[in-house]
């Protein structure tokens, strides 16, 4: 690749397993400028003590193996190299990792559920999860984060040729929790990857989902739903790096915000490299602002370095509940509060209904209702 074909964005230039290769962020860096560093509890500067505990409880169908392995397991860190300091810290600090394997051509008969429960948010915990789908395997994996934690982790998804992986990551932490996570998917030829991030609870949640393609035909759909309450910082930073021809990506993240100092950040970076001809991509972020005092930062960034794309677009819109929507529903006898709920449910529901696991879908719907109850009770 020549100099003139490098993307302008330098956000994703750096990758290293060594913490020392990354400067301690000051908050002025592009990749940290939206994150309140003080609330990271030292995850970013080496001062966090690692006495915290996040306990795993796994449930898997017979076709799928779930193993707890040591740091030296050869399967770890193959798909993803840490891209920022917290990620490198997590890589350097985890004591054991979880490896989920779906063998070649196996079709999982039920979702694999990894329940991660934080027991204490006063000290840091680090984790690593690697999910491997061998060629033509098909599976759904749920990562359910609950409890109290200060948690940094890396999650690798290795989706082999022709394999299909659907992932739902639920951030349903207790109020004081901090969670910084990188979720990287690496797709083989004709692999299909669908990801849902649902971020609801926690003081600060910063999730960085990224996708890389090893061969043509890869297809990634990244969906996200979040609901930020007063004081909460929910940040999602997406990167889809189209490096090979004829791959597809779709990004659709939607959030609602209510009450003082609710803060949502969405960064959507899509790079179509010079060699990625025939790429088809679209990314979208929408935010629904329900009260005064909230803040949204939404930054779509699409870089196209080839003239031969099948489709490329992006959109971002943040705004209040539409008065015309509310008027229309109220003009049919529906109360203001119910009209507001219907609009929010509809707005987020279009993504929630795509979640393939009925149980999770219902849980998310209930959680959204609880958020709306909180808003109505004010």
């Amino acid at each position, binding site marked *: 690749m020549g100099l003139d074909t490098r993307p302008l964005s330098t956000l994703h230039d750096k990758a290293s397993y060594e913490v020392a290769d990354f400067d301690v962020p000051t908050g002025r860096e592009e990749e940290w400028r939206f994150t309140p560093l003080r609330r990271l509890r030292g995850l970013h500067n080496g001062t966090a003590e690692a006495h915290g505990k996040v306990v795993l409880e796994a449930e898997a169908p017979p076709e799928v193996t779930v193993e707890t392995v040591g740091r030296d397991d050869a399967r770890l860190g193959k798909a993803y190299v840490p891209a920022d300091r917290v990620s490198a810290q997590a890589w350097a600090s985890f004591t054991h990792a979880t490896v989920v394997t779906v063998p070649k051509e196996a079709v999982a008969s039920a979702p694999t559920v990894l329940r991660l429960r934080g027991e204490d948010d006063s000290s840091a915990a680090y984790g690593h999860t690697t999910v491997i789908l061998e060629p033509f395997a098909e599976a759904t994996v749920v990562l359910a984060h609950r409890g109290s934690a200060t948690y940094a982790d890396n999650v690798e998804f290795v989706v082999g040729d022709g394999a299909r992986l659907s992932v739902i990551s639920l951030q349903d932490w207790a109020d004081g929790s901090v969670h910084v996570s990188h979720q990287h998917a690496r797709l083989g030829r004709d692999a299909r990857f669908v990801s849902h991030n649902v971020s609801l609870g926690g003081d600060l949640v910063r999730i960085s989902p990224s996708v890389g393609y090893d061969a043509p035909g890869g297809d990634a759909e990244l969906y996200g739903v979040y609901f930020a309450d007063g004081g909460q910082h929910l940040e999602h930073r997406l990167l889809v790096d189209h490096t090979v021809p004829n791959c597809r990506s779709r990004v659709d993240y939607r959030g609602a915000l209510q009450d003082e100092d609710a803060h949502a950040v969405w960064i959507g970076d899509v790079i179509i490299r010079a060699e990625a001809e025939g790429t088809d991509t679209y990314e979208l972020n929408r935010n629904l602002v329900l009260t005064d005092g909230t803040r949204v930062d939404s930054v779509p960034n699409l870089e196209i370095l080839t003239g031969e794309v099948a489709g490329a677009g992006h959109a971002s819109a943040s705004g209040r509940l539409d008065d015309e929507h509310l008027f229309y*529903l109220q003009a049919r*006898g*529906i109360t203001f509060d119910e009209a507001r709920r219907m609009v929010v449910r509809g707005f987020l529901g*279009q993504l929630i209904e795509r979640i393939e696991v009925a149980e999770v879908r219902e849980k998310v719907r209930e959680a959204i209702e609880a958020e709306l109850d909180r808003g109505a009770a004010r």
Partner: protein
Amino acid sequence: MATLEIRDLHVSVADGSDGTKEILRGVDLTVQAGETHALMGPNGSGKSTLAYAVAGHPKYEVTAGTVTLDGEDVLGMSVDERARAGLFLAMQYPVEVPGVSVSNFLRSAVTAVRGEAPKLREFSKEMKKAMDDLSIDPAFAQRSLNEGFSGGEKKRHEILQLEMLKPKIAVLDETDSGLDVDALKVVSEGVNRFSSGAGTGVLLITHYTRILRYVKPDFVHVFSGGRVVAEGGPELADELENEGYEKYAKAGAAL
């Protein structure tokens, strides 16, 4: 007997700079159950403003006058209270509400207006019948409200809501605009089914006389310059068909 009574209604809107602009300048109009009124007038005469002000749209400020439904003060009610009291506005430009399905919306509206949730089985049957009457594909029940609907489909859905909510008085704001002849007939049949029901009145706002071939008005009001400038029977519509609004536009301006 339901009666909608509008007396000396004055309504203003923000004029885009700092002031307000008076659109309605003393409207007097009474619609009783069993009657169909046509309110006709040129563009910009304030017809739609009247419709929205009666429904309670926050953009329109009532500066003087009264609106009552069976003696109850409508202007003191919220938008949803007006609907539950028995007023219905079929909108000229129904809005699209993403993610809210037609059936979910109808069920919520019917529940709100009737004061109790209809039994699911009965509701489904009722909705299917009402959709069938308006030649609406049943698949629309699962679609997002008005999203991607054609102009004609949106208008049919307005009448679908009218027929299911069964208000006392319905205000139809240019429901005929943008409809081809077939759709106009279907929509008119819906309006006629509604108005033939017991104790219901219709205020049909229109720019054109075309719909009056299918929906026969008992009274015709000519609207100009923000008020009613002439009233009569169906023959007034024929006169407008032949001579246009010119004469009345002057009358409105002179007031």
